[in-house]
């Protein structure tokens, strides 16, 4: 997500959205490049879904937004040919048969391949004659994923795609996405609360808090910027003087999280580690619900 780029897949400038007096998005700027897997992470109500809806042209907004070169407000039809979406709420009608779902998407989407979809489903227990109401929650997500992966779209938007699924379904969801779908010409934006499960999949990280971006960086940059240091009590004061983002205690030692402090200075205090995205998130969002 470099600041200047020729043709970002998504480009947002001063993106804002109000619901009455509440600012769901408050002047957000970002670029998303092709071939990236971007995690949009934030507490409930931070504005994640609003941002995704704006990108998909499902809501009105203020500011500038360009998605694959289209204006989502005015060119939604053109945009929809290049974008697909899995929402956290199931949208398939319960009476629909799997076979009919495939026929339906084939009828409305010019870039959908029924053969590809059937090939994906062949790896699951889902049969063409089954109705949506006979499928478990995990199977419905599998069906969604098969329908979406069979669309040759440039941008895939996933809003809490694995919400409520057990760990087996969650793992196989991301496994299929990486082995059967993703390549350097595609871009994925994903929101989830299960950060620890996808942190190694992401190439870019965006934290959103109360409608503003609290962090937007590549995972490489995150690894360079942030460091966790385990410090013995005798050096704790020296560590605090460097203004850590966060401090927590484990076994009588303090673990400090630093942003942008030179590695050589930190190494004098104790052992350096790369913070997990979950730890970084908790430190960044301190005080959100307070």
């Amino acid at each position, binding site marked *: 997500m470099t600041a200047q780029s020729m043709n970002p897949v998504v480009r947002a400038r001063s993106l804002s959205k109000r619901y009455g007096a509440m600012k769901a998005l408050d002047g957000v700027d970002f670029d998303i490049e092709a071939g990236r897997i971007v995690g949009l992470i934030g507490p409930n109500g931070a504005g994640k879904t609003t941002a995704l809806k704006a990108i998909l042209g499902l809501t009105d907004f203020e500011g500038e937004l360009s998605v694959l070169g289209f204006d989502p407000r005015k060119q939604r039809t053109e945009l929809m040919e290049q974008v697909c979406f899995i929402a956290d709420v199931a949208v398939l009608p319960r009476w629909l048969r799997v076979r009919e779902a495939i026929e339906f998407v084939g009828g409305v989407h010019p870039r959908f391949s029924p053969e590809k979809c059937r090939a994906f489903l062949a790896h699951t227990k889902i049969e063409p004659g089954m109705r949506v109401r006979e499928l478990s929650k995990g199977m419905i997500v599998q069906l969604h994923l098969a329908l979406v992966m069979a669309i040759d779209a440039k941008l895939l938007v996933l809003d809490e795609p694995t919400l409520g699924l057990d760990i087996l379904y969650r793992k196989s969801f991301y496994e299929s996405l990486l082995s059967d779908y*993703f390549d350097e010409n595609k871009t994925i934006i994903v929101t989830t609360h299960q950060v620890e499960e996808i942190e*190694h999949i992401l190439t870019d990280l965006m934290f959103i808090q109360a409608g503003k971006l609290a962090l937007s960086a590549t995972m490489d940059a995150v690894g360079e910027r942030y460091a966790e240091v385990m410090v013995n009590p005798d050096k704790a004061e020296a560590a605090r003087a460097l203004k850590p983002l966060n401090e927590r205690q484990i076994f009588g030692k303090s673990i400090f999280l630093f942003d942008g402090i030179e590695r050589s200075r930190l190494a004098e205090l104790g052992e350096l*580690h790369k913070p997990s995205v979950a730890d970084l998130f908790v430190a960044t969002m301190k005080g959100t619900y307070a």
Partner: protein
Amino acid sequence: MSIAWNDSTPIYRQLRDRVVAMILDGVLKQGDPLPSVRQVAGDFQINPITVSKAYQELVDESLVEKRRGLGMYVTEGARDALLKSERERFLREEWPVLSARLARLGLDLKQLMGESKNEERK
């Protein structure tokens, strides 16, 4: 597959070290294909750029070569080259430390070799 990555080394580096260990152990032999970037990304649930970076390191070290349109293969002589460099590294970095420790404990090599033979007999 779930892998516990440690958080003090970049993952691409840890992936590279895994492949190196597999070559040294003979699990991957010269001329063997490496799994595709997609496959590894899916199996380990890591992003494909990380996998490509690990593979690129191996290419830079001439342990792996890219065959156009076919993928990555372990080069001829990769294991010998690795054995040579790993042996040199052992003699340069690990042996002086180990040898000093043996001297401190008053152990000599003959005695140690005898010990390991006893172990084998048990």
